């Protein structure tokens, strides 16, 4: 739909499609269907050769004389052993023993995350709240108070950001700290392995399940929407 809107203003577009069934209906001017999981539009991370093949195929559609054009990437390259979508928290049984002190656990994860930053030249998905990792103990205390049903807030929440959205950003930053920290420890870990570890074995995973429960019991659809995005 976005492609059609841009094309109508005179820009030639070519799209990468992950859902062939939808693309067939919407009919963007040019689309390349790729058989990759969600989150893997260009194929595989750190695989420039495959990414170039995808790009050349998508850009090649620009020489077509008429459209709409929908082509399949001429190969069936499901990347490695990655599942089409990550497992949901509801499908992962928490371990019997999970750390109680999430603030302490977060401080330990921060050390691993610092290693991640060294390895990744500073690239991190952390940063939706604007609160630096060095002050995540405060974020954890806020989230714990929220999960306990207290009327809590943080001075760092911008006035225009509703509380449930801010809770969601805190949860996403916390996940980024843990997931990237885990990648620093185990560089070959895939998304499924990390999800199983986070939801099954960490205190932070248990805390986010409780956050989800509090948001989900609200009658406010915005709170429910935030719950849906934190854990299912």
């Amino acid at each position: 739909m976005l492609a059609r809107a841009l094309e109508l203003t005179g820009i030639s577009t070519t799209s990468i499609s992950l859902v062939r069934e939808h693309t067939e209906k919407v009919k963007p001017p040019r689309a390349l269907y790729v058989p990759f999981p969600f989150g893997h539009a260009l194929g595989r991370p750190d695989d420039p050769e495959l990414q170039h093949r995808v790009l050349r195929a998508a850009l090649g559609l620009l020489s077509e004389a008429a459209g709409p054009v929908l082509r399949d990437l001429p190969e069936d390259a499901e990347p490695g052993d990655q599942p089409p979508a990550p497992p949901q928290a509801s499908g992962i049984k928490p371990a019997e023993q999970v750390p109680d002190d999430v603030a302490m656990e977060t401080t330990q994860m921060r050390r691993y995350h610092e290693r991640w930053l060294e390895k990744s030249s500073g690239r991190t998905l952390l940063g939706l709240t604007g609160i630096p990792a060095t002050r995540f103990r405060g974020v954890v205390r806020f989230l714990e108070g929220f999960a306990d049903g207290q009327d809590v807030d943080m001075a760092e929440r911008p006035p225009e950001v509703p509380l449930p959205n801010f809770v969601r950003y805190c949860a996403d930053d916390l996940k980024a700290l843990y997931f990237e920290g885990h990648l620093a420890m185990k560089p070959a870990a895939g998304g499924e392995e990390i999800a199983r570890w986070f939801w099954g074995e960490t205190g932070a995973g248990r805390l986010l399940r409780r956050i989800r429960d509090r948001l989900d019991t609200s009658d406010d659809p915005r709170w429910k929407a935030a719950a849906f995005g934190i854990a299912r």
Partner: protein
Amino acid sequence: MPRLDRLPQISRNNLLTFPAQVNDTAPFVRPGKPLAGCRLAIVTTAGLHVRGDRPFTPGDQTYRVISSDTPTADIVQSHTSIGFDRVAIMRDINISFPIDRLRELVTRGELGGLASNCYSFMGAQREAARIESATGPEVGRRLAAEGVDVALITPT
């Protein structure tokens, strides 16, 4: 995408009930020159933006500008649906925003150049009337004003 039958039920249901617009034809503008002479912008629906810029909210139909020379370390993602694996983009931003790969194509002479700005929208939109009527055309006009010939549209 992964075959529908391999997806968790919740993701499969989301896709099967997705209110995709049905069209019979498509607008179609042929680029006036070969790719080696075209300026290209990435327009992504991966919910990316510069760190410190306003994060997207679910269903947000606004857009963010990402200057093409933004260091990739400064790009974050507020599209954080749990329906996709974020580990791929943690490892390599090119998985959704192939800026390094496109620069390589420019260096090799296969692509004319990169636009000064790329643009980003939120993904997983079930209702996109404002993108269709307002913010999408607005980005199109900005791209045209910035001398862009081609937009590459990338999902999450």
